[in-house]
């Protein structure tokens, strides 16, 4: 059986993403990033508790370039995931469902995530 030709648009540059769609994709991306960060965070917790020497090793590790970069990324991911998650919970409670308000809150969440990214980059000296 021949497949009927479906309309396709694979040229992503011509696809316009509404702001809530950007928020949604970043919510997934940040969630995945946070899952990937779990082993690193768990390692630091275990090492820092192991003894005074381990605690100092983690403090030194966090002062290194790669660790600071990872911290900034995790800070953004956590902030975006948290803010977007709160927005979804409010929408579940019928708060901000209307399109204009949903768009406005999506802008606010995306911007707040970027603001945390900038603050974290400043805090950890990137």
């Amino acid at each position, binding site marked *: 059986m021949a497949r009927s030709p479906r309309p396709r648009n694979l040229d992503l540059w011509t696809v316009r993403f509404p702001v809530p769609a950007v928020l949604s994709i970043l919510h*997934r991306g940040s969630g*995945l990033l946070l*899952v990937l960060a*779990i082993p690193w965070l768990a390692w630091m917790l275990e090492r*820092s*508790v*192991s*003894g*005074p020497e381990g605690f100092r090793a983690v403090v030194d590790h966090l002062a290194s370039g790669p660790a600071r970069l990872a911290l900034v990324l995790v800070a953004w991911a956590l902030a975006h995931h948290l803010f977007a998650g709160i927005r979804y919970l409010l929408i*579940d409670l019928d708060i901000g469902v209307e399109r204009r308000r949903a768009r406005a809150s999506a802008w606010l969440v995306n911007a707040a995530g970027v603001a945390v990214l900038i603050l974290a980059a400043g805090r950890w000296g990137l």
Partner: protein
Amino acid sequence: MKTDNAGLRAWMLQRLSAVYLILFVLLFGGRLLWAPPVDHAEWTGWLARPGVATAVILAWLALAVHAWIGVRDIAMDYVKPTAVRFTLLVAVAFGLLWLGVRLAAVLASIPAGGTP
């Protein structure tokens, strides 16, 4: 027994765990940012407090549920080969369980009442 409301249950668990994680991240993360522990004694002394240790264990429970459902949702959308998806999800599930065992061991390794 497979029920036809499994999707709804995951949806509800995702939101319940989210509410706990929001509170935990704000309180635990806020405390670490405002007053970072300066040495090992202070750090373990704080973690060993019954309230803090209980909150951390509950956070692991919420995180395991939340991360599992989240990874499952993403895998269902993007990882199509059944064998790959199954292996990935089993690996994530065991990873999260192993994390809980290690976390319990770490918290138990702190001598009780060693530091105020």
